[in-house]
């Protein structure tokens, strides 16, 4: 992290400018590339490129890296074997980015026009404005966002057709009506950033309004246990699903798990319990509120977990009956495409959406007045930094950029549908550190 005072002043200026006037004023910053934070996975360039996409609805064309980071592994080593120019589909060719979210053959059909939806971020971890911005963007794009585990703010009810109710281990804010409103119910068993640690909301973020929503005591740190104490086995899990299906028979069921070694077994268990969506969350996700020691150090990288689960489901002969969604380290449109090529049906976004709304990954998310950009806060003042409509527009622009990139990529691969890309590891290249590559 850069800490000298000149850079710090620039950061402050930049964000004030960026948040209030957009990125049109960049050239006036006079130092060429504006400074950003970042780390090898979420590089400064990726952060800037995400901001640009949220502003301009398309990938930067001036050389700013928007596809990969510099982690030296995983998605950052993968590339696509695009066809020679003459074999590609024409730029005007229509490609289909839609994926189904129910392939079970029972319950209702749900399709999203883009292969992603928003992951769970609770009221408490982020502000109501952020939740609204995400819900508005989800509605515009006919996809979904998730409540996370902190209750269902009434303002979200207007978007309920696009809001997933998450049921997590603390059961905060889960009531019969929030189960009944939801087209999809998401059981969060674990989070890839901190598997086995449950959920934490430190006291300073548990404000009066947050505590009211969760019916807890204000200013006290809240703990969601790990695991569900009512679910210690797969048959309990089935019972758990049967319960919420009793409350809302029309809902699809998503099961969110982290990526332990036996994630493949968990996948099959979820299938037999009746889940429609298996959501695997790798170790690279999470905001700055997740403990540093846990992030990246416990769960398996999502790039490993996806093919492991995909192939196992294939062996079991049930791959085409369950939807596999991946999250936890999906930063860019290219990450989405790579995850799908590795075997996922689609991806779930979290951090990249926050970045689109101004996050610098400064890792100050756990404190009540920590987030300088009004994202991961429920502080009444800081929350005002982000207006829902503004945030929704930023997300919508980012989505448009992603959709454009994915369409171009599919044309480059000669594929007409994103569904044809699933599991096509033959279309991926592994790039060695020395710049060489082998397929």
């Amino acid at each position, binding site marked *: 992290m850069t800490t000298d005072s000149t850079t710090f002043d620039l950061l402050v200026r930049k964000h004030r400018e960026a948040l209030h006037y957009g990125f049109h004023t960049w050239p006036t910053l006079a130092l060429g590339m504006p400074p950003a934070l970042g780390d090898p996975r979420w590089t400064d360039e990726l952060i800037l490129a995400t901001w640009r996409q949220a502003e301009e609805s398309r990938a930067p064309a001036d050389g700013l890296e928007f596809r990969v980071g510099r982690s030296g592994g995983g998605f950052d080593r993968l590339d696509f074997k695009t066809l020679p120019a003459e074999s590609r589909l024409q730029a005007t060719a229509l490609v289909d980015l839609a994926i189904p979210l129910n392939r079970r053959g029972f319950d209702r059909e749900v399709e999203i026009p883009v292969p992603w939806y928003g992951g769970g971020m609770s009221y408490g971890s982020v502000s109501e404005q952020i939740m609204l911005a995400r819900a508005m963007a989800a509605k515009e794009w006919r996809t979904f966002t998730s409540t996370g585990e902190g209750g269902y703010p009434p303002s979200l009810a207007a978007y309920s057709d696009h809001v997933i109710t998450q049921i997590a281990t603390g059961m905060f804010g889960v009531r019969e009506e929030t189960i009944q409103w939801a087209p999809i119910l998401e059981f969060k068993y674990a989070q890839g950033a901190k598997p086995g640690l449950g959920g934490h909301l430190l006291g300073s973020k548990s404000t009066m309004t947050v505590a009211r929503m*969760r019916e807890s005591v204000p200013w006290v740190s809240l703990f969601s246990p790990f695991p569900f104490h009512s679910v210690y086995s797969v048959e309990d899990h089935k019972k758990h699903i049967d319960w919420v299906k009793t409350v809302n028979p029309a809902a699809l069921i998503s099961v969110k798990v982290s990526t332990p070694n036996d994630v493949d077994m968990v996948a099959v268990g979820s299938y037999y319990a009746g889940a429609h969506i298996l959501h695997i969350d790798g170790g690279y996700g999470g905001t700055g509120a997740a403990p540093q020691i846990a992030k990246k150090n416990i769960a398996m990288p999502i790039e490993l977990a996806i093919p492991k689960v995909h192939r196992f489901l294939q062996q079991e002969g049930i791959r085409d009956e369950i939807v596999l969604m991946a999250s936890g380290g999906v930063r860019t449109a290219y990450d989405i495409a790579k995850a799908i090529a590795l075997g996922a049906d689609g991806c779930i976004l979290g951090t990249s959406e926050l970045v689109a709304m101004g996050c610098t990954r400064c890792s100050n998310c756990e404190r009540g007045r920590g987030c300088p950009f009004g994202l991961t806060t429920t502080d009444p003042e800081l929350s005002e930094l982000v207006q829902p409509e503004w945030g929704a527009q930023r997300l919508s622009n980012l989505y448009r950029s992603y959709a454009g990139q994915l369409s171009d990529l599919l044309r480059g691969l000669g594929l007409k549908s994103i569904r044809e890309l699933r599991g096509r590891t033959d279309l991926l290249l592994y790039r060695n550190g020395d710049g060489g590559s082998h397929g």
Partner: protein
Amino acid sequence: MVDPATVERLLGSRRQLGTSSPTPLRPADAEGGCGVIGMAASVPVAGRHLLQALAQMRNRGNGKGGGIAAAGLDPVFFGTTPEVLENDYLIAVALLDPAAKAEVESEFLEPVYEIHHAAAVPGLSDFRSLPGLDVAPPAVHAYFGRVRPDVLQRFLREQQLDPREAAKAEDEIVYQTTYRLNRALYASTGEKRAFVLSHGKDLLVLKMVGYGDDVVRFYRLEDLCARVWIGHHRYPTKGRVWHPGGAHPFLGMHEALVHNGDFANYASISSYLAQRNIHPLFLTDTEVAVQVFDLLHRIYGYPLEYVIEAMAPTTERDFTLLPPEKQRIYRALQAIHIHASPDGPWFFLIAQSKTAERLYRLIGITDTSMLRPQVFALQRGRAAVGFAASERQGIDAALASLAAEDSRFWPRADLFWNARGGSHTDGGAFLFEATAADGGALVCTDKFGRRIDVDGSKRPFCSGFRPAAADPALSSAEIGLPAETVFAEASRRLPRWGYEELQSFLDGLEGRAREDAERTPVIRTLTLLLDRRVPTGGMKRSGVVWRIDETLARIFDDVRERPGPTYAWMSAESAVPEPASPEQTLVIDARGYPPEGNGSLARALVDLASRGFRRFLVAHARGHRFLGAGLGPGSEGISIDVYGSSGDYLASGLDGAEMVVHGAGQDQLAQIMKSGKLVVHGDVGQTFLYGSKGGHIYVLGNAAGRPLINAVGRPRVVINGTCLDYLAESFMAGDALQGGGFVVLNGVAFDEDGEIHDLPAPYPGGNLFSLASGGAIYARDPHRLLTEDQLNGGAFTALSSADWELIRPMLEENERLFGIPLRRLLSVDGVERPPDAVFRKIAPTGLKALMPEEAWVHKAK
């Protein structure tokens, strides 16, 4: 204890078995919980009595693995003599490839055994006649034999074993022969051709790809009688092709083990076993569990108490409460065997035969953290039967099946209880020992050998029993009085009634209930008698309750024949009636409804409520789940009374409605309950009120593990008994005095004579109100038995008058509901004391870091 040299030599002899595979790091099969039931009786009981229990627990398996074990068998089933059954090893071989039989015999059995008898265990001619079965069950052949003397002598000589250890050596030869056979014909070959199902004396294991009840049906065990039975459904989650070898039970020597749960330290246990030359073949965690049991019990010769301690160690506060001598031994056991202790959620059921003592055991062991549901039961009349199962409704079903055709049993158990895993109180394990001698007996003990028994002075239901001072039954005029009066009069006379007087009274009530308008007071009277723990004199409570059950069942059935404006009737098969008025009660016969899913009774209740019905009476419940869920917010005015065996998740999400369970609840009751009222006339199971937000809740008996975990808002709860452990962990229910939530824990119980007595401690667990930030516990603890070391984040505070005014109305309602007088609760050793001398309040310590932000927000306001 066994001579250490013998242990060394027996384990050393296994070196010659060799090992082809390195110690596995994880089981090849993954599975979660399962459905298990065990039954032990003083008399032989037939396999068909497991059928209904297993059928009702099918939702705990997925049809990919089922099995049974039976001990104390009937020689006629195998066409042999009692002597052969008692003295010979019963080697049951599953022949997946019938052609393997010759090889099994010539390569493995004949060189080792003198076979005295052999018989096929006949299966159905066409397995497809059992719906849902898609893998052919193995053909099973049973061989009865002893190890050839020359083989035994050679083994003793080669292993330098004392000839006095011949019995141990013979067991070991049998064990190793099975190992060789399984490795050659099942584990290591690509094609799975044959494996040994069981090899103990007077013990039979059968298993297949299917449900446990399919095993009984396919192998025609309906009529096979045994003293101990265990049945199991499995929920494997890996493998497109399933094999019966992965199903439970797994085999020790003279015991078979089934398991509900899974554990995390499979690799650790496997390497512990590998150090002792024991290598798994089937690669499931259940297999290593039974190998640990066999090692500790047979090879090391530990008494069962120590075996149980090694598997489920006593920890934390419970350890410190053990006598010093036990602490010393347990500490040594833990030091040596902790790596063999399965870590995670598990509940083991073991069937064991000890033919030398003509003894057959059913053992149930729960893990130290009590993470799996488990329940035990006992009934003793002219015969005795004990149960251990994952669900109470499974026990109810087995007892009902027994009672339906054997007059020595009746459908109600005398005792039901939960084990407190790894505790100093019961050790988390119970043993039922059935002996064949003297016409048969059944003894139940806990881990420490303490007897669990029923009051022997009470009579089960039988004719001709007359108490010393008889009272006439109520006259027809008296029966016409208001329900409360009839109840009061009947309960006053009940102790001096025999079953004839009781029956005549019940028949009188039944006659009165033939008028639709009279049904309400009659059902009310009978329900009071059912719910309240009134003295029953010389009669067993379970016998009295059974007669009341029968009368109520007939009255409910009568509604079907003759519905009226007050009572309507429906079942899964009948047409849906229209409500005559909002006051009309709809009696629903639960039997035809599946326990869950779209056609479930829970969904039917939601649908009926939307049609305008407000009062429901659920009759004949058989483990139906989720009753009361889905009614949504604003369900005030809806009332649901449940009779029979209610199921899991009852009242979950309840938000306004009122539910009364006339009996015990199962697991996961009232999850996220928001408002309304729940009354349970018995115990409740695991994670009661998890994540609840409000409501008024009354429980007559105990709660199992983790009640009120993560509860917020304002749930207000009275638990008259106690809890196993982890009560109100992470409780966040505001300030009890400012509209928040609380639990009143009374720590009392009724005895057989309807007398209220104090439990030995109001709360035995080592974790009370841990990490709680809100709400309060009001514990009735006049002798100050609760101690600081049970708390973690809470503190004892004095009971203020405001506290008393808060809980007093709840305790008055508690008195109305359960007949537990407030004055009795305030009495200590017969003397009424002021509330603050009896109740103690536990509240959050209030220690929390005041964040700068908090101060800032306060200032901003």
